């Protein structure tokens, strides 16, 4: 319940953060934004950093801006703030839906998009959703700035391409000309609120046909994954013909089932079954949104 002692610094700029990370390179430093992954681990004794560097007040890292072809989210923007932006919902509806499913009201007032992705909890909602959204992150290091796509970001359990002295500063999602429909279907753990399984489905529809499908899943393996078999079954199909059951049936294709997470909440076998069901549900929900007859039924 009581964290170990640590030194607390508040950084005012990204540059200052980089300098402090270099200065304290011989100590264990954690960046603090929303703190709703980090602080619980410090309270339970799992984590005991020497230094906490609070980056939550850095203006340049906060806020949402909309350009012609991209929506930019500062890394320390809270989930609650993200949800105020209709442009984000329009550009990346599955990602937006996942943000709305994180935790609870209080958590969404403090937790941040960058923190979620950088922490890469296998049961967090946003990594799978970032994959579906074709998101890209900006990482600032000692050598400068680089851009990493979500496809290359998640490496394993709590492991990302962000290095120990680097800062994830921004998350972007593309805006496309095609009509976009998407959603996030989640089987939440009744106790923790994390995803036992979460499936984000994004469809780009041109003239009634699914031109591109991106499907991301959380909670199944040690990090967020794309469900490429599901994408293949949907791509090139007319939205009136696309079959949610067929999508659910292939959800496990290409997944090494021996690597599916197994714990006190759910066996690997149950998680696999949840993945099929929630894939079907997510696809069904998106198709209902995307199909013209749903307007007729109103």
């Amino acid at each position, binding site marked *: 319940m009581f964290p170990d002692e640590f030194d*607390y610094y508040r950084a005012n700029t990204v540059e200052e953060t980089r300098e402090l990370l270099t200065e304290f390179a011989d100590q264990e430093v954690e960046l603090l934004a929303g703190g709703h992954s980090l602080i619980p681990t410090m309270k339970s004794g799992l984590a005991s950093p020497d230094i906490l560097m609070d980056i939550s007040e850095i203006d340049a890292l906060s806020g949402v801006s909309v350009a012609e072809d991209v929506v930019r989210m500062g890394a320390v923007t809270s989930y609650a703030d993200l949800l105020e932006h209709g442009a984000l919902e329009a550009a990346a509806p599955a990602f937006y839906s996942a943000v709305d499913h994180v935790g609870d009201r209080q958590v969404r007032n403090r937790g941040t998009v960058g923190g979620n992705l950088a922490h890469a909890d296998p049961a967090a909602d946003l990594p799978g959703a970032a994959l579906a959204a074709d998101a890209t992150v900006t990482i600032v290091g000692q050598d400068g700035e680089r851009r990493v796509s979500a496809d290359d970001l998640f490496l394993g359990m709590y492991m990302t391409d962000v290095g120990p002295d680097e800062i994830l500063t921004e998350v972007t999602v593309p805006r496309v000309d095609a009509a976009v429909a998407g959603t996030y279907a989640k089987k939440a753990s009744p106790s923790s609120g994390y995803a036992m399984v979460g499936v984000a489905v994004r469809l780009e529809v041109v003239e009634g046909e699914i031109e591109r499908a991106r499907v991301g899943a959380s909670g199944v393996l040690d990090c967020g994954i794309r469900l490429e078999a599901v994408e293949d079954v949907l791509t090139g199909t007319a939205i009136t013909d696309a079959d949610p059951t067929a999508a659910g049936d292939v959800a496990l294709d290409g997944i090494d089932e021996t690597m599916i997470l197994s714990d006190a909440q759910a066996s690997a076998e149950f998680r696999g079954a949840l993945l099929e069901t929630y894939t079907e549900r997510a696809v069904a929900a998106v198709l209902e949104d995307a199909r013209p007859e749903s307007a007729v039924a109103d």
Partner: protein
Amino acid sequence: MGEHDITLTVNGEKHSLTVESRKLLVHALRDDLGLTGTNVGCESTLCGACTVHLDGDAVKSCTMFAVQADEADITTIEGLADETLHPVQASFEVEHGLQCGYCTPGMVMVATDLLSENPDPDDDEIREGIEGNLCRCTGYQNIVRAVETAAARMDDGAVEGD
């Protein structure tokens, strides 16, 4: 940098404190400022009994360090009522939205936050709104009713305590 001088404005009153970096906001409120209405109910950020308003938003004060709240404007359960109960408090009384009362400060604080954003929530929206708060006594039924009643009273422009 293990100890910091901070300023917390709590329920309209400014306080200067010196706290260790590791002091949780809930402990600063309870132990340093004597505001024991905010409760500690778990060790896992799940129960919400510690919910306060920080710069207008409901947050779990057990999952913040006091130093993070330096210069912030905080409202605790003690700060909701004037001479009379806040409509949400009055509604919890009228609808018997509590038994032991331990979760109640947190429930009232999150309900107030919910209603400020959504003044007319339906049943599902209320239940979703209190997802971050656990009650071991009531089964939530009367808590949800209390929030519905509060919404109706506030919508009617009811004066606090009516």
